[in-house]
């Protein structure tokens, strides 16, 4: 089934349970207001605080080290910046995956994700979130977010043995930093930048 199908099932379920949702609205309404306030207070630009907490917990469960190269909440911060900085009409699906991860353990008769102990979270991940199939597979896609948020951070590169370009680039390769340009330069300026670096094989 596609993600859209799951979304429609979720919406249909919400419709069926709408009386219950209305009755309990003071509870979740208050919780949402509290989340929005916490979002502002904690400086998140896109993620809700509970999602950020879930992402940090997922990162902690996924990446097996007691000495992370960057703090787990920083993974959520990195992803918050990433999600905030691009425009897309599909972006809310990522929120759905991040938010869904918090509550999906309930389907397996477990506590919400961040309520579990670290070891229980890890056991849950290993048991359910190592598949590409079904609803678990859709939630497991969140692993890509964690990988992006953690391993694209410079702090994680040293342990991998990766050296930044400037450390290994040959000096004779003609490294010339392109000077600052206006936001929309004329082509003559672009050309001038480039013509400083003319390869001999052109002629």
């Amino acid at each position, binding site marked *: 089934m596609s993600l859209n199908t799951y979304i429609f099932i979720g919406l249909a379920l919400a419709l069926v349970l709408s009386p219950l949702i209305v009755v309990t609205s003071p509870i979740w309404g208050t919780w949402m207001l509290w989340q929005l306030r916490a979002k502002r207070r904690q400086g998140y630009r896109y993620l809700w605080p509970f999602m950020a907490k879930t992402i940090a917990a997922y990162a902690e469960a996924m990446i097996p080290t007691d000495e992370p190269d960057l703090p787990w909440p920083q993974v959520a911060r990195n992803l918050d910046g990433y999600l905030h900085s691009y425009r897309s009409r599909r972006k809310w699906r990522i929120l759905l995956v991040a938010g869904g991860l918090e509550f999906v353990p309930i389907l397996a008769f477990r506590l919400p994700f961040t309520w579990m102990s670290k070891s229980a979270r890890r056991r849950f991940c290993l048991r359910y979130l190592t598949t590409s199939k079904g609803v678990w597979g859709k939630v497991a896609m969140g692993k890509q977010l964690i990988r992006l948020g953690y*391993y694209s951070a410079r702090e994680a590169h040293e342990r991998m043995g*990766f050296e930044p370009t400037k450390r290994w680039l040959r000096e004779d390769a003609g490294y010339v930093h392109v000077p600052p340009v206006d936001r929309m330069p004329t082509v003559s300026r672009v050309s001038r930048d480039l013509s400083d670096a003319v390869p001999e094989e052109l002629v």
Partner: protein
Amino acid sequence: MRKDMHTDFVVIGSGAAGGTVAFGLARHGEKCLLLERGRWVRPDDMGDDELRMIAAIYKDGGAQMNTACDMFLLQGNCVGGSTVLTNAVCFRMPEEVRRLYAEHGFELPADRMEKHYERVESVLNVETLDEALENPAADPLKRGMRALGMEPQRFKKNYLKCIGCGYCNVGCRYGRKLDASMTWVPMAQRRGCEIVTEAEAIRLEYERGAVKSVLCEDLRDGSRFRVFAKRFVCAGGAINTPELLLKSRILPRLVGRQASFNCGAILFAEFPEPLDAYKGDQMGVYWIGEGYAIEQLHNPPGSFALTLPGWYDRHHDDLARYRHLTSAGVLVPTAPIGRVFLGIGRKLARPLFDHAEIEFQIPRQDLEVMKAGFKRLARVFLAAGATRVIPPAYEYSEIRSESDVDVIDRVITEQKHITGFGSSHPHGGAVLGADPRRDPVDQEFRVRGFGNLFVADASLYPASMRVNPQVPIMAVADYALQWIAGIDDIAPIEEGPAFEARQKLLAAR
């Protein structure tokens, strides 16, 4: 807030096709306007922070997927479009593909196209990659290929003195990749073409077979404006163009069909000695045969971690061996069975679903070709001295000897079993052809039933190109100018950064 605009030609999309068309129009003194949804990201705004750059230049932050969420579709979302995030790989359209298109009614005369390729390649400065720029993993890959009787070839690239930093896929911060944002678009701008960025074409407005205007949203403030013109050129790429036509309710039964993809996935190999494959160009060598291409591809850490198979401890431990690991991809052209459509969700909950959906599952026959490619690549790595090869499968497995190669048949039986399965080369969706009951675009690049609406991008192609398509897309767009604006120009283009660099060098001598 932008006001309504008036021009003669509107080009929607600034990538390989849009940039080329805009320049062609501006070069001949036509009044034109280029619309682009993304920002103009200059080299100085780029960097090696993968997360930031993926968000800045990829459509949907690199997370565009098919409906089943088992296929990534990577496209650009900035001035220059997908050319900004390519590995600068340049091929011409293979002859057998050109013939296949001709059978479909999409005639591209070989002698005429030769001239367009020459023009495009001159602007892009297409040259064979300098061997010194190959990353260190190219040597073992070539060794392995030769051991199996395959002759590796070095890619042709559109660089101007590349320094081999290994970050092509997140935009060239050194300004050395001559993508559309460094060539066609500023060249068109210099000749008077107006560039309007961060503006999304929402709908084409028309009456009695003539498009009057394109309704746009200014993404900076959400306001709307219209661009009125005499002719309209759709060049947003193989997903955006069908999406725009469908949203405009233009030929909904034909548009979005016949979508095909150059699909691929990446195999990883570990070598006993550190390779440091990140030190150099991401893509150095390739081999084509038996229905697929094997292309070297080594990613910087963030993207590498995204595509490396394995879960939890295994994944983390493998990444600790990053210096010993390298990777290469298998690229397979697929049958045109994909579909771009506006789902029912758009009617039920428009704010959530106001975008095109992409439906595609690789046909069984193409999957078998891809698996054959994986097996051959695994053998290449083993012959090169790899201690283990990791196939791109959700069920983690390792190939340590020839007897393990068939594990690929066990762990991959469907598309959803392949990790990192995706395509950066979508084709079709607004196909050009001879059959009005099948192809929404006629043989003069005109959308059927409309006198002033043209398509110039990869959505025209009735079948997958089989190779990285940026140069053919540009050449075909250049060719299409004959019908779009009556411009019959095959004279050399003597301007642009590569030309100026050549002139400067000649003058210095």
